Structures are given as structure tokens and as C-alpha cells.
């Protein structure tokens, strides 16, 4: 970032600006010439996809706010007004609602890519930790956004989730009342959720900036998990990865828009088309699919406080991952034993998601408990042990050699 005016631009206006504020040099160095490992596969496109989704959420959200009224008596009606009377309001609303789900889809794939290829290991620990903060901020944002339309599931999700904090000993009740702005989920709750739902995406954007900054110091990890050794190992980001990312983004958008146009409320809950009613509890209170694994862990523990701790711990533990995994080898391509446990872990997360959608009883409760134990065991037992015990496969000397071996 310190490479001031290291480029000679031919356009005099660009040169004039760049010598005073080197934004063009910065863009050229960081977004065009940036040396990127030549062996990145399509799993590496999900970072760009996630960033695209954030931008879509910001733009659609800012326009939706122009028509939305954050008040318990008016919120539901104002959403229906957007759907019926605002020009293309239905499009904005469905882009935004489905956009949240697809943002999570992209981010979850992005995280699992990092887990598989060891992208959290030195020297990328801070890059990874900023990513975990982004995930948590995203979850808070999505939860508060889901409350805003003030349907039945919106309201009861707010009741259930805010009530979690009442499990905290001594100060729990006080904290919950502070969150609510009163003695129940009501208008003050809706208004503060609206305020924070508008604020947090900009915090997210700033975090994404830091995330990319932290990425551009060591550069990208890659599927072989070996460091870049020479210029031969890399390609300039533009046009190689700009064009590859753009293609991947378009494929992702096709799937996303297929839902927006042809099944816009498929991922939602029918009951949320019924206005919030504090006197009628829905038969099943279920979060959106992207919270189901955490929801399953919450309910897997018989004790309320224990459940809350386990749920939050499932996220917090990710901060410690760079030091829990003791292996110096990044990519699971060269760790055949860990690879098996990784895929078991991935399946566990899906199983937790399925269990989270079922009533917490009988066989599903047992499944959720076993899956929760494995989730934590993977980080706390399996990775630390395998880092010491596993003998990794021989690795190629360089990225170029790895690429040539493939052919």
C-alpha cells in the first residue's frame, strides 16, 4: 500500500490525481497486478461472490428503507405496500430476502474452503479471525432484518432469541429488558433492531475491507497450501481472476435469481405472511435455514444456560482454530486422515441443520447431541491430535511443479 505513484499513467488527469492521492496506483497494484497463485480452483471464487451479495444487500436495503415504516402497527402493512404499490418493490423485497440466504450460502462455502485448505494457518490468522467477526456480525444483521417485516415468525424469533440472554445468571433479566427497551418485545425493540440493521451492514463493509487488506499482505493461500516461491507461481489478478470470478459470480446469480423470480418465498415460512400477534404462538418456531445448525446445538443441551453457551462457543471456537490445528501442512490434499474427519465434520454440520428443523425430541434430539459433540471434538480433540500424529503425504516443491504434475 506504500507504493506511491510507482506507475506512469499516460492519462494526464489520472497522473495529476495519482501524484496527489495514489488511488490509481493502489488499484493497479492491488486489483490488477496483484500476484495470485495460478492454481486457485473455483472454491476460491466464493469470496468475490460473497462480496457481491453484500453489495446487493446494501443497495436493495437502502432503497427498501425509503418505503419501510419501523413501527409495530405499520411495519407489516408497509412491507405489503412495497409488494403492491411501490414500482418493482416486490423485486427489491425478494432480492433482499433471498439475498440474505444466498449471502450465507456463499459465506459458508467460503469458510469450508478455508477449513479444507488450511487458509487460517500462519501467516493468515488475523485474516481468518476478521472473517469470524464478519460471520458473527452477519448473523446479528440477518436476525434483526428478519424481525423487521413483523410477521408471526419475525416476532416469535425475536422473542426466542432475545430470551436466550435471560439465561445469564444475575443480570440476565436486566440485559433482556435493556435489549427490548421495555418489558416485552414491542415497538422499541422493532425500532432499535431497524436502526442496528441499517448500521451493521456498513460495519460489515468496513470489516470486509480489513479482511481484504489482511489478505493482500501474505497473498492468497492455494489448493496445495504451499507458499508462492517465484513469480512463475503466480498470475496477475487481472485478467485471470477478474474474469474467472465474474463468470462464477454470474453462475451464482443465476441460481439466486431463479429463486427470486420463481420461488421467492420458498426459503421462508408461510406463517410470516401473518401479522405478528403476541397472543398466538406458532406451532413451530424455526429460524431460517442458515441458523438451523446453531439452533440445533442450542436445543441439544438440556440446560438453558448450557445451550446458550454451547451455541455461542460453536462460533467463538473458530477464533482459536489457527492454534488448535497443530499441523504445519495447510492443505488437506496432503493430509489423507484429517480429510476423512473433515468430511465427517461437513456432514455433521448438515445433519445439525436438519435436526434444527425438527422438534427437539426423540431421535432428533439424540442426533443433535451426537453431532454437537462431534462438532466440538473436531476442533478440540481431532485437529490437535492429528496435527501431531498424522504423517502428511509428500508435497510438490512449488505451485508451478504442482500445476505441471497435473498435466
Amino acid at each position, binding site marked *: 500500500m506504500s507504493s506511491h505513484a510507482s506507475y506512469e499513467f499516460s492519462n494526464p488527469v489520472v497522473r495529476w490525481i495519482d501524484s496527489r492521492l495514489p488511488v490509481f496506483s493502489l488499484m493497479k497494484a492491488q486489483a490488477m497486478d496483484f500476484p495470485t497463485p495460478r492454481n486457485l480452483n473455483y472454491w476460491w471464487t466464493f469470496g468475490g461472490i460473497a462480496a457481491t451479495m453484500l453489495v446487493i444487500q446494501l443497495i436493495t436495503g437502502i432503497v427498501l428503507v425509503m418505503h419501510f415504516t419501523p413501527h409495530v402497527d405499520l411495519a407489516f402493512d408497509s412491507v405489503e405496500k412495497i409488494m403492491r404499490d411501490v414500482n418493482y418493490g416486490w423485486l427489491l423485497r425478494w432480492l433482499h430476502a433471498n439475498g440474505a440466504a444466498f449471502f450465507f450460502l456463499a459465506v459458508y462455502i467460503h469458510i469450508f474452503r478455508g477449513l479444507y485448505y488450511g487458509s487460517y494457518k500462519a501467516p493468515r490468522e488475523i485474516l481468518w479471525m476478521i472473517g469470524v467477526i464478519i460471520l458473527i456480525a452477519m448473523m446479528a444483521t440477518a436476525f434483526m432484518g428478519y424481525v423487521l417485516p413483523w410477521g408471526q415468525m419475525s416476532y416469535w424469533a425475536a422473542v426466542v432469541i432475545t430470551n436466550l440472554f435471560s439465561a445469564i445468571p444475575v443480570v440476565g433479566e436486566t440485559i433482556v429488558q435493556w435489549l427490548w427497551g421495555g418489558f416485552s418485545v414491542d415497538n422499541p425493540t422493532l425500532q432499535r433492531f431497524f436502526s442496528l440493521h441499517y448500521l451493521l451492514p456498513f460495519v460489515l463493509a468496513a470489516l470486509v475491507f480489513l479482511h481484504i487488506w489482511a489478505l493482500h499482505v501474505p497473498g492468497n493461500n492455494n489448493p496445495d497450501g504451499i507458499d508462492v516461491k517465484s513469480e512463475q507461481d503466480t498470475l496477475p489478478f487481472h485478467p485471470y481472476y477478474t474474469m474467472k470470478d465474474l463468470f462464477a459470480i454470474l453462475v451464482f446469480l443465476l441460481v439466486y435469481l431463479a429463486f427470486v*423470480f420463481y420461488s421467492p*418465498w420458498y426459503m421462508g415460512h408461510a406463517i410470516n405472511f401473518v401479522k405478528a400477534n403476541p397472543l398466538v404462538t406458532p406451532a413451530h418456531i424455526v429460524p431460517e435455514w442458515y441458523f438451523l445448525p446453531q439452533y440445533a446445538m442450542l436445543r441439544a443441551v438440556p440446560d438453558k444456560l448450557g445451550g446458550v453457551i454451547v451455541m455461542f462457543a460453536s462460533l467463538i471456537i473458530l477464533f482459536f482454530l489457527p492454534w488448535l490445528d497443530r499441523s504445519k501442512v495447510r492443505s488437506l490434499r496432503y493430509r489423507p486422515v484429517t480429510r476423512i474427519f473433515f468430511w465427517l465434520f461437513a456432514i455433521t454440520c448438515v445433519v445439525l441443520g436438519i435436526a434444527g*428443523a425438527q422438534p427437539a425430541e426423540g431421535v432428533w434430539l439424540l442426533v443433535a447431541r451426537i453431532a454437537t459433540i462431534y462438532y466440538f471434538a473436531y476442533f478440540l480433540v481431532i485437529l490437535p491430535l492429528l496435527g501431531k500424529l498424522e504423517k502428511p503425504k509428500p508435497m510438490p516443491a512449488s505451485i508451478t511443479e504442482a500445476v505441471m504434475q497435473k498435466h
Partner: protein
Amino acid sequence: MKNRIVRMLAVAGLGLGLLAAPAQAAGLQENAEEHAFSFEGPFGQFDRAQLQRGWEVFRQVCSSCHSLNYLRFRNLAEPGGPEFTVEQAKAFASQYDITDGPDENGEMFTRPGRLSDAFPAPYPNEQAAKAANNGAAPPDLSLIVKGREGWYYPWYISPVLKLFKGNGGPEYVRSLLSGYTDPPHGEEREGLNYNPYFPGHWIAMPPPLSDDAVEYKDGTPATVKQMATDVAAFLAWVAMPKMEERKRIGLMTMLYLGLFTLLMYLVKRAIWSRVEH
């Protein structure tokens, strides 16, 4: 044939189901009866004549107890709906008395309805609705088709089937309205009626339709099944008045984006063919 394709896709797409919305636990409810509505599928459109018939059923039968708060009379003449003429829509509106005001003397007054008016509710408030209906307020029907589900499948197949069949809201409304039967074992409950499609089976609403309750102008025989189907389609339109616009823009978007994606793939391939990777 169509069913077979759906079934094949359903099986093939099982894996996709893992991604999808949570399955509801099966409660005390029958799956709605299948019906191929004209507005299903990515190209499905509303049947204008059916929506016009459904409007008659709603107006003459349902509206005596149920509100339709999000419908305005002008919507009846807008594209993508029943598409009455503006004159017809005005005539419908003028048949209702709308409370307006206050006037310059501070008095509220009633006047005939206009195109911009919302469809007037049968009761002034929820308490009045409850008082007149044995303590159970008839719900607003503007979103009933989106707010109810018709299918209760096992968790491992439900997300896939719903991807192709939707939530079953229109089918639920149709089945409910035409599905009243005698209760099994002759059981009776005070003030409640037996309907296998209603969650819990006992519903406060008495059977609202009977043959020839409405006289259709287009000569269609007004059987209970026909009226239930027509009003379910009408309520589907009220719940999603922009559906036709959505599918039209969707098609153009998907075609454009599909072509763009193909071009980007060729660009990407051309660029990467220069290097080993």
C-alpha cells in the same frame, strides 16, 4: 406425464433438499387435494375468466365475514389480474359505502366507493368481528394463500417437493372450502364444524358454499368445487398481484444473464488457455 417428471426431479434433487426450508412436523392435517392451477410453474399465468368468477364468489359470499384489506378497487382493472375494464371496476366500487372525512364541519360522512378505495371490511374492528362470530375473528384473506400451507410431507422429501409444487396455499384454500364432511364416529363439538383439511380438523367457519350460491355470468355451473377453485385462484392473485410481472421479468433476466454467463465462460476459457493451470 407431468407428475412423472416432477417425481423424477424430486428424487434427483434429494440432495438439494438438505439446503432447504425446514420441514413441518406432520400435525392433525390432511394434505390438500392436488389441483393444476393455471398460474403454476415458471410460465403459468392467471386465467382472467376464473379470477372474474372468483371475485364474484368473494364479493357475494366470503366478504360478508372476511376482509380483504390490501385489495383496492383499482387493482381489479390492473394488468395481471382479473382485468375488468375501468368502468366495471368503478361500478363495483360505487356499490359500497365508504366512510370518509372529516369534512369542513368536522363530520365524518359516507360516499360511494372510488377506484382508489380499499375493499371495505365487514366489521369495524377485531372485537366486533369476534363478537359476531362466536369469539373467532374471520382472518383477513389478502395473504391467506401465502400464509397457509397445503402439503405435509416427511422432512427428507418435503423441501424437494415444495420446490416444484409450492407451499400448496391455493390448493389448501380450495380443499378447505369444498372439503367439509361429517365427522368420524358422529362426534360433535359445540360451534365447530368438521373439516379434514383444517389443522386440528375442527373449524369455526360453517360450510360457506353450496351449489348455485353464486350465478356465474359466463354460464359456468356454480358447483361447490368450481366456486372453491375460482375463489382460491382469485385469492392467489390478491396475495401475489405482481406474479405475472415477476415471471415476465424473470424470463427476460434469466435469458439475458444466461447468455452473459455463456459469454463470460468463453472469455475466461480464452484467457486461461494461454497458461498452464
